[in-house]
């Protein structure tokens, strides 16, 4: 069976810099995969490749059997890939409820004329979306905050809201870009639970980009390690932990004994 997401021999150059070099990586359906690496290893670039922000210089990216290279980001989202951002990007002037509601636009059957005429069909669809938004918010314990401005939420809740918003597009694959950035240990524990819960509850694949080792080790089934745009290791958390190349990339080479 084909994997859900498949990155084949992808290379990205920015001028003379090879940000990602001949990367091969796949995520299966319902899998919790991780992509780790030190700062500047090219993790976010890989994310931007998958979501269509960048175009690979060479190579192919296939999602559910079809190539997504060259597609506009909103079309890739429509195929079933949703994402969160490293630096939270919520719709700042909207409330919690409206942030999630905006992500339902993709599934709307009504358009301008229904919005203006406001017939019974429009009312039914709005009521249905309303209920679905609330259901999602309740699952993630954000129901109480529905009318709060999203920027007034605590940091952890904003992260959670971003995940809720991404889920509202009904993805098959959820990409999380450094969700643990800026979190304290308690919040990280909470986040790990949240990621596992999301994956099981919605039965979707999750790809996690992170440089916090503990979070990745504690959640992912399989991990790939990037360093300077090259994949240096791939495997289960335990194998990665012991891999000398990974230790070298993170901690540097062991100094030779005094000459």
């Amino acid at each position: 069976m084909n994997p859900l997401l498949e990155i084949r021999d992808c290379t990205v150059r920015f001028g003379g810099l090879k940000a990602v070099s001949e990367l091969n990586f796949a995520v299966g359906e319902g899998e919790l995969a991780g992509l780790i690496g030190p700062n500047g290893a090219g993790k976010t670039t890989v994310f931007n490749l998958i979501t269509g922000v960048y175009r690979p210089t060479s190579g192919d990216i296939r999602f559910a059997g079809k190539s997504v290279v060259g597609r506009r980001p909103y079309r890739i989202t429509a195929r079933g890939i949703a994402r969160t951002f490293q630096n939270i990007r919520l719709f700042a002037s909207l409330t919690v409820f409206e942030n999630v509601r905006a992500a339902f636009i993709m599934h709307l059957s009504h358009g301008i004329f229904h919005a203006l005429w406001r017939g019974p069909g429009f009312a039914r669809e709005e009521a249905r979306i309303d209920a679905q938004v609330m259901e999602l918010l309740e699952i993630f314990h954000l129901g109480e905050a529905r009318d709060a401005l999203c920027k007034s939420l605590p940091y952890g809740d904003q992260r959670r809201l971003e995940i809720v918003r991404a889920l509202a597009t009904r993805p098959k694959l959820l990409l999380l870009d450094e969700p643990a950035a800026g979190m304290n240990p308690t919040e990280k524990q909470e986040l790990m639970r949240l990621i596992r819960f999301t994956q099981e509850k919605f039965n979707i694949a999750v790809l996690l980009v992170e440089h916090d080792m503990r979070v990745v080790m504690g959640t992912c089934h399989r991990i790939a390690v990037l360093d300077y745009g090259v994949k240096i290791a791939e495997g289960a958390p335990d194998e990665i932990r012991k891999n000398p190349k990974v230790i070298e990339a993170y901690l540097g080479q062991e100094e030779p004994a005094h000459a």
Partner: protein
Amino acid sequence: MFERPKTLFAVAVALSFAVSKFSGGVNPYYYDIILSIGINIILAVSLNLVNGHTGQFSLGHAGFMAAGAYTAAAFTTFVPPHHIATTLFFLLALFAGGLAAALAGLAVGVPSLRLKGDYLAIVTLGFGQIIVVILQNIDAVGASRGFSVASGYTNFFWTYFFAALTVYVIVHLVDSTYGRGFLAVRDDEIAADAMGINTTKYKVVAFTLGAFFAGIAGGLYAHFKQFISPDGFDFFKSVDIVVMVILGGMGNTAGVIFAAVLLTILPEWLRTVSGCTFLPHWLRDVAQNRMILYSLLLIVLMLTRPQGLFGDARLFRRTPKFKKP
């Protein structure tokens, strides 16, 4: 506030019809101001869709108004009206004006809406200038001498009918799940794109619809003043409309309507003050320099309330209530 939008719209139209029945005896000077207010409401509310709700900074609204004004005026001047009723004829002219402006909006919008912020402002500014220069060189509509429009069809009823229609369309378009897209584009285009929202389409829709109503306003203006000249639609006219939007609070329809009323009345009111003989001399001198005073007032308002008079108050924004099981 807007639980029954269609009823509210009907009430607004009925009200303007009722008032129009009594407008015959009104002092022409006041009548002039009242109609200007209505036209400015259309202009400001439609620009608010582009600059306020969708967050695209357009400086070419007067250009779209010009396209509408000249098209509608040319329609009533050159098309023989004999077979149809005057009202229908006038509405057709207005619609033609709106359509011409919308097409201009589409033509400018599609290539330039990938630009952001200042760059888009400069492109739309350039477009406004191009329209003025083109009109100055079309002899059939009077070139730079201006264009006299024989028929003064615009009246209180039609002005306020279209003002109500503009407000209705824009408020209800934005206030729906579909309409959240405009606000999402304004708040964060990258995130909107990642949420499956076709940001380009939203921007083009906002731009085209905004231009359409500007065109209608232009048509009303042409058949109200009965004389239009290209200079009347220059950069400064665009700035006037932008100021109404900023002063009212970007994206706040009620605030923008209020600002349109205020900024139409204020210069006239200052003119009246400067003419009052019983006021002390220094006060009349101050009011005499009304354009300076007007500018000062804007500066003070922007310093004290940069978010506009009403900011982002959700007077016209309703979140549907969730029914608890």
